[in-house]
């Protein structure tokens, strides 16, 4: 398992993606799965950067763990910000017309749709969001 610890700031997004992409490329991840995983990382990390630490600066740790046989990956996002389970948000209504659809609310929905498993726990003062994807 490899990990990266960064400031919970969107300016760190490219560093987090480079870190994960290097591992995904070593694992032989397909282009499609890598894009889906990158999107999931972006949506989750940006959420942490925007909402976890409303009053101060904080950090996030991202753990990347290849699965058995290297054809899957598990990625865990950990922060010590306010307890927040993004999976509880109601899914957006994707049948509405363009005029009726709100701008936003799609990020976590895309994560849920494209990953094989998504789970959340709050433990020992930490938010832990875990995604798993086979490729």
């Amino acid at each position: 398992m490899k990990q990266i610890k960064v400031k919970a700031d969107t300016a760190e997004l490219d560093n987090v993606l480079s870190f994960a992409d290097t591992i995904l490329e070593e694992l032989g991840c397909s282009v499609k799965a890598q894009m889906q995983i990158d999107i999931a990382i972006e949506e989750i990390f940006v959420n942490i950067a925007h909402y976890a630490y409303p009053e101060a600066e904080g950090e996030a740790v991202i753990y990347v763990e290849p699965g058995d046989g290297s054809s899957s990956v598990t990625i865990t996002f950990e922060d010590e910000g306010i307890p927040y389970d993004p999976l509880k948000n109601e899914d957006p209504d994707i049948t509405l017309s363009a005029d009726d659809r709100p701008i936003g609310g799609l990020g976590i929905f895309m994560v849920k749709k494209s990953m094989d498993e998504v789970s959340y726990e709050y433990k020992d003062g930490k938010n832990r969001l875990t995604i798993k994807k086979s490729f």
Partner: protein
Amino acid sequence: MLNITKNANGNTLKIILEGRLDTTTAPQLEAQLQDALGSVTDLKFDLEKLEYISSAGLRVLLASQKIMNKQGTMVISNASAEVKEIFDVTGFSDILTIE
């Protein structure tokens, strides 16, 4: 990294996007569109060289669609299979005109 190329011809505006439309780059596109859409009635996006789109990028496309619904048409062309799948999963295939 996102390259934005704008070709304006009368009330037609074609925008070629190259690279990644994400949290970091979406504000650049949003700012350019705010300046450029004024009298446009025919907006075209060429996504042939767009490698990646996240919800931040989708937000900008939806905002553009809302504007163009009031003043003309918006068409998206040449999206890759991966980008098209994002449009499918999010229901954008139904609200955008994709050719």
